[in-house]
Every structure is written in structure tokens, then in C-alpha cells.
């Protein structure tokens, strides 16, 4: 199989995630877009790991780490979003401008 198929899929997922992070206003949707970007990173890691073909499977081990960190990120991110909703009664990230200059 050509290596360009998974790499293109990863690039597509990452760019769609970038669009979602920049354009959506709902904080939970922004979190979903970040998940898409993390998935793109794991696909790249696994693909390049297969191309390099090293003995200790660095690509797949790092992909597992990214998976676990993504799960932790969703937990902490949803905690922050719930806190924002409780204090500001909104999940619109355009309204979360307390620390904006």
C-alpha cells in the first residue's frame, strides 16, 4: 500500500480539527475538534513507525501515550468547561474573556 493514503487522511483530520477549533463557539465542540487533531497525530505516528520498522515499535508506543494523554485531556477539559458553565452560565468560548487584555 502507498504511504500517502494514511498520511493524507491524517492531514485531512488535522486540518478539519484546526477549522473546528477556530470557527466553533461551543466549548464542547472545540474539545471534539481537538480530539480529531490528536487522532491525526496518532495515525502519523503509527504510519511512520511502520515505514521505519524499528525493533522496539516506537511509533505504536508513542501512539498509545498520545491516546492516554488524549483521554486525560478530555477529562480535565470537561471539568474546566463545567466550571465555566457554572460561573458564567455559558459554554460560548467568545464569552470566556476574563483574562483577555
Amino acid at each position, binding site marked *: 500500500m502507498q504511504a500517502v493514503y494514511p498520511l493524507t487522511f491524517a492531514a485531512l483530520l488535522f486540518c478539519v480539527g484546526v477549522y*473546528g477549533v477556530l470557527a466553533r463557539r461551543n466549548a464542547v465542540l472545540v474539545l471534539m475538534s481537538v480530539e480529531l487533531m490528536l487522532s491525526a497525530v*496518532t495515525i502519523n505516528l503509527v504510519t511512520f513507525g511502520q515505514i521505519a520498522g524499528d525493533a522496539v515499535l516506537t511509533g505504536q508506543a508513542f501512539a498509545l501515550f498520545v491516546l492516554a494523554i488524549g*483521554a486525560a485531556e478530555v477529562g480535565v477539559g470537561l471539568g474546566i468547561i463545567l466550571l465555566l458553565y457554572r460561573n458564567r452560565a455559558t459554554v460560548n468560548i467568545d464569552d470566556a474573556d476574563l483574562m483577555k487584555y
Partner: protein
Amino acid sequence: MTLPDLLMLAVLVLGGASAVLVVVARNVVHAALYLVVALLAVAGTFLVIGAEFLAWTQVLIYVGAVVVLILFGLMLTRAPIGPIEADSDNRRLALATSVVLFVFLATMIFRAFGRTELPLSVTRTAALGEVLYVHWAFPFMSLGFFLTVALVGAIILARKEEGEGPEPQLDPEMATERPTPAPTDTSTTPGVTKPSEEITA
């Protein structure tokens, strides 16, 4: 075209389409359900490449746990189940950024890896486990510690503190405005500044 090529193309089209639908869907619950299809497509990519264990971990963690967590988040923030309001003002700028980025990345990928063959060999779970628990043992255990810390932190963040913040308004007209500050009795809690003052400042 061989069978892996066809499978990968199907996964690419399906996953790409559902990923686009995640970010353009008007309904947030539909977006979460399209996310399931996109993440399953990622698992399918892993299966085609030959990373079996990662594929099923992806299904378990992302499709099983993360999407359920996100749906709970939508429920707890009382997200509008119907169509939501328009996107942020910089939507065109975001579209331009992502399209330019994709064209750049695709050009780079096709120039650098246009003729690279991907060796398709199945990585057995036992082999991955041996490597993980011998060569990657210390990072792997630190990862477990990290996950514990992150989840305890998430619980502490989301827990309701005494006298913190006003109750969210149920009225949709009021919800778009700034919430009215809850009256805080400073006589009983002297050292505590009013949270409402910090919010409106």
C-alpha cells in the same frame, strides 16, 4: 489496486466526510455522533496498517469512553439540543487557514512520500506488550501516574465549592446575558472576596 488500497480509500472517504460533518453540524448531539464514525475510521486505518492492539484500544478508549464523556458534557452544560447559533465571526478566516494548511501538507506529503511503499505487517499484541513492559516500562508507568493525577484534578476542578458562582439561568434569554451575581453574605465569611465582583470586573 489491491485490497488494502481499496479498504484504505473507503476509510479515508468515510472518515474524512464524517470529520467534516463534525465541525459543520448545526446540532451538537449530531456532531458527537459523527465523531464516533470519524474515530472508528481512525481505528480502521490502524487495522489496515496492521496495528491491531492500537485499533481496539482506539475503539475502547475513544468510541467507548471519550464520546460518552463528551455526551455527558453536552448534557450537563444543557447544550441546546436543536440547531445552535451561528459560528464565530472569524469563520472565513478559519476556513482559509485550514484549506491553506491542508494544501501545504498534501503537497509536502506527495512530494516526500509519493512513491514510498508502506510495509503491511501485522504487529502482534504479544510483541507490543513485550516491548511496552521491557523497553518502555518507565514511561508506561509514569503514564499511569499521570492519568491518576489528571483524573483527580478533573474531579477537584468540577466539584462545587461552597458559595461559588450563581446558579445557571434556565431562561434562554437570560442565559445569553451575563448571569446575575448571587448575593454573598460577606459578614459570615470575612476573608472571602465576592466572586461576583471578580466576574463583573
